[in-house]
């Protein structure tokens, strides 16, 4: 009869046997594939989308195509915007703006200046970048070169019903910022800190801190909270984390801006907050 200690000793000794090095060809195989493997955005775990049912996925993709087609039509020269006959953006873009999408290489250190995000159909987001920030591989976020701080700019359609559910389901959440706030208040595992009225780009906005309590049981490593038009989800804070977000209604489009700080130095977080506070919007009336 083996004692428990005997079995543990045998198992430990047995586990010591086996390979301890990685063949070069395996490593080379990985590194050869890295340039063709895009990194995922820090807030939008595509893994979650990949696990969605095919019908839901096709529906979302179809909706994204329709939205993109309509937006493309409305924004094309000579076409009236959805809200009226004038296609003139408000305010008019300046020549000094750099299209954020034109920075194609992930990890590129950004030249300090004014950038514009054009990926959203009805709203362009303009922001100033100081020294020391880079673009990831995506057209909606900037990363600090010296810390884990990042700033994300996005538009939000609805909320995810349960951020910690393995399969995210969408909870319809009205159209206004107030609707979004009410939806957040009823989302399991989400705690809302103090909300502060702000002005962003000349528009009324709300700054609030979203947290998930420490010890909250989360069945997924990457909880998600916001549903983004298109096919993506925006990550919620993990248990024990707090995420500062700004909500602003830009002519009917809910824009959400978020800072992910990851224990960054206070000065860097302040710099990120200054970038957010200086944001401007361009939209069609």
């Amino acid at each position, binding site marked *: *009869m*083996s004692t*428990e200690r005997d*079995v*543990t000793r*045998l*198992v*430990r000794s*047995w*586990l*010591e*046997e*086996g*390979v*301890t*090095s*990685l*063949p070069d060809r*395996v*490593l080379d*195989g*990985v*590194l050869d*594939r*890295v*340039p063709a*493997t*895009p*990194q*995922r*955005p*820090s807030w939008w*775990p595509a*893994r979650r989308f990949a696990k969605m049912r095919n019908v839901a996925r096709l529906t979302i993709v179809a909706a994204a195509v329709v939205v993109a087609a309509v937006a493309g039509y409305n924004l094309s020269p000579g076409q009236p915007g959805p809200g009226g006959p004038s296609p003139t953006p408000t305010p008019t873009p300046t020549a000094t703006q750099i299209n954020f999408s034109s920075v194609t*290489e*992930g*990890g590129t250190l950004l030249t300090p200046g004014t950038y514009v995000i054009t990926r959203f159909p009805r709203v362009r987001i303009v922001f100033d970048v100081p020294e020391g920030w*880079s673009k*990831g*591989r995506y057209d909606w976020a900037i*990363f600090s*070169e010296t*810390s*884990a701080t990042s700033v994300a700019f996005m538009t939000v359609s609805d909320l995810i019903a349960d951020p910690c559910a393995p399969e995210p389901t969408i909870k319809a959440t009205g159209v206004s910022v107030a609707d979004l706030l009410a939806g957040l208040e009823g989302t399991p595992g989400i705690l809302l800190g103090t909300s502060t009225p702000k002005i962003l780009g000349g528009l009324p906005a709300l700054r609030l801190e979203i947290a998930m309590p420490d010890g909250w*049981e989360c*069945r*997924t*490593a*990457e909880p998600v909270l916001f549903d983004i038009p298109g096919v993506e989800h925006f*990550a919620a804070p*993990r248990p024990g*984390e707090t995420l500062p977000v700004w909500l602003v209604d830009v002519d009917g489009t809910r824009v959400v801006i978020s800072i*992910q700080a*990851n*224990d960054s130095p206070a000065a860097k977080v302040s710099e990120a907050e200054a970038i957010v506070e200086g944001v401007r919007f361009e939209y069609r009336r």
Partner: protein
Amino acid sequence: MDIELVLRAQRGDEEAFASLAVAVGARLHAVSHRILRDIHLAEDATQQALLSIWRDLPLLHDPAKFDAWSYRLLVRACYAEGRRTRAWAPNLRLLPASEPSTPEGLSEVVDRDQLERGFRRLSIDHRAVVVLHHYLDLPLEAVAETLGVPLGTVRSRLHYAMRGLRAAIEADARPAAREAAQ
């Protein structure tokens, strides 16, 4: 782990990731081989895990937790390999290259063979707990965090796995002991 390397790789620096892969590749491969018990499956799982690390690095909120996070991705890759090959993989049995000839040595070989068979009967979930705890020496709390499951689940899996391995040793040892006595 070099946090700066992780941060640079998070921002898309491929050279930094290459250094990171060199630094952690062997350790990950050792773990995947011990979970899957097949060198080819382990190579595929390690390769997939390293690519997942590159792809998902921006999702890592706390670079200081890179090690635990990388093990989580590795175990996921092992699950995938296990699922992909379950239907056709031959039940290979690996024995030590040089088998000791003394009676005590024979007993050790028999134990290892029995362990091999007992271990292969375990699910990947249970194997992962055994390897993380008994090979990497991670405390159960760290195993729970790495696998993203409650501590009670880890305790239960470890208990079940060790009971299974003990049963495998004892069941297979009985006929061997009888043969030795004859």
